[in-house]
């Protein structure tokens, strides 16, 4: 029986307790993992979370439906548009609001660009964890800054856009901006992607560091509740954009990136391919973009009817679920975020035992944490 408070297995001196975090550069935020080591091998691992618990779910009950969009941005601060979109979809389902076609296209466009920037952060983080200090990080930020400039031109903010609205989006995107973005995605971005791939999957040291590390089967991962790219890397074709399309995904031509190997390298490959797929989707959306309204008229004091709905979306990290409940008033009765990484992280105690301590961070990088959404 492990007693973490006492520092290891009771009555035994063979194993050693190592605390990683909460202030540690490779935990990507404030995560604390208590590991018990036998030599270099992890015997048990227990993630401790809650260091960033801001009580967003309670705060949401004090604000009106529209005001809560501000909190959605700050949930998973690496994938802001995904959260906004999921919340808007949930409220729209609850209140029976329809969204104009152009707004759906714009949402999908920003959602996919967001997937690129989110995966780029993962890329910077995971390469740093395995020892490539600096170089891939700097390169990842090149494309990210370009896309962030686009966000800023469109929404007025770099990181906290607050751009989607219930029933549409806040402001339209200029044709010139779109043309500019398209140009970037078609010409420069694929070259950037080549660089990313060369630095990660084309680098012999990185490959030998990742290959075969943390290989899991689809059954195991499904059992542990893992979703998203981490699951697809084991060969599962599960992707809500294809299985239960929302936005305009049913009109787009894209490939669900999955890989059979299931190890850390496969997880990296899947994410790198998703970056390219997302860029392709964005180009398609820009080409297909129809003219028209961007916002349906909704009452300022929105009061959805009584009831509750749960909506699932595919965020860059996995299946993001938003459950909203209304009691017919101007404020939500309950706002629940089913965070994909919360459950991905809960699989860590199953995933880590038997691996080396140094491999732990590689496996850990494979699920791409963002503490804001885990702790809420």
């Amino acid at each position: 029986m492990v007693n973490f408070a006492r520092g290891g297995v009771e009555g035994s001196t063979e194993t050693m307790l190592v605390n990683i975090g909460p202030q540690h550069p490779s935990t990507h935020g404030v995560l604390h993992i208590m590991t018990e080591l036998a030599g270099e091998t992890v015997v048990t691992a227990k993630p401790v979370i809650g260091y960033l618990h801001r009580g967003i779910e309670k705060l949401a009950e004090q604000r009106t439906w529209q005001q809560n969009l501000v909190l959605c941005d700050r949930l998973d601060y690496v994938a802001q548009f995904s959260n906004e979109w999921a919340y808007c979809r949930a409220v729209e389902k609850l209140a029976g609001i329809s969204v104009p076609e152009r707004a759906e296209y714009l949402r999908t466009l920003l959602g996919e660009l967001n997937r690129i920037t989110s995966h780029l952060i993962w890329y910077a983080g995971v390469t740093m964890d395995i020892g490539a200090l600096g170089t891939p990080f700097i390169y990842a930020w090149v494309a990210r800054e370009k896309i962030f400039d686009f966000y800023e031109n469109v929404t007025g903010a770099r990181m906290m856009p607050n751009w989607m609205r219930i029933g549409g989006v806040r402001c339209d995107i200029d044709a010139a901006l779109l043309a500019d973005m398209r140009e970037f995605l078609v010409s420069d971005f694929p070259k950037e992607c080549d660089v990313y791939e060369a630095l990660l999957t084309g680098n012999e040291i990185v490959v030998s560091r990742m290959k075969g590390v943390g290989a899991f089967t689809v059954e195991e991962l499904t059992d542990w509740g893992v979703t998203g790219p981490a699951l697809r890397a084991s060969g599962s074709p599960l992707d809500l954009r294809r299985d239960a399309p929302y936005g305009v995904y049913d009109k787009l031509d894209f490939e669900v990136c999955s890989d059979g190997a299931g190890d850390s390298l496969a997880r990296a490959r899947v994410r790198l391919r998703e970056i390219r797929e997302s860029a392709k989707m964005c180009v398609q959306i820009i080409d297909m973009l129809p003219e028209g309204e961007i916002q349906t008229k909704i009452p300022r004091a929105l009061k959805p009817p009584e009831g509750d709905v749960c909506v699932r979306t595919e965020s860059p990290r996995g299946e993001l679920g938003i459950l909203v409940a209304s009691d017919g008033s101007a404020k939500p009765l309950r706002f629940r975020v089913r965070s994909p990484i919360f459950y991905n992280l809960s699989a860590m105690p199953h995933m880590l035992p038997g691996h080396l301590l140094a491999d732990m961070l590689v496996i850990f990088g494979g699920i791409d944490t963002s503490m804001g959404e885990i702790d809420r």
Partner: protein
Amino acid sequence: MRSDLVGILSIHGTALHGLGFDARAVVTREAWRDCAADLQMAGARFFDITAIDRGDSVEVILVLIDPPATHFSLRASCPNEDLRLDTLSDIFPPAEWGEREVFDLFGVEFDGNPDMTRILQPESSTIFPLRRSFVLEQRPW
């Protein structure tokens, strides 16, 4: 919704109401665990476990996926005087953390969960913030 899942629900004395995003089945607290176990055997996948405070009771919600695309929820309500429910953590491993969170924020205890401690708030906390009886302090300005 697959017919075998509907059949399992009817064995446990409940039925599915609503459609799409709103499909739900309410079970008694006694049938909660068995029903979830049968659904798991029939291939339902875990999505989420959470709760809503309904005033005089707390409704615990288990969202399950009927692969690949549809989802539905299984609900059981616990009266305020007796906030306990059987654990699902051995049926669905991720439910362990989900139940800890429900305990942390609502105070519902899950019998049989191996680690029924606070997960998000500090250990020293004494509040259950998502209960309606817990009211946030007003700002002084």
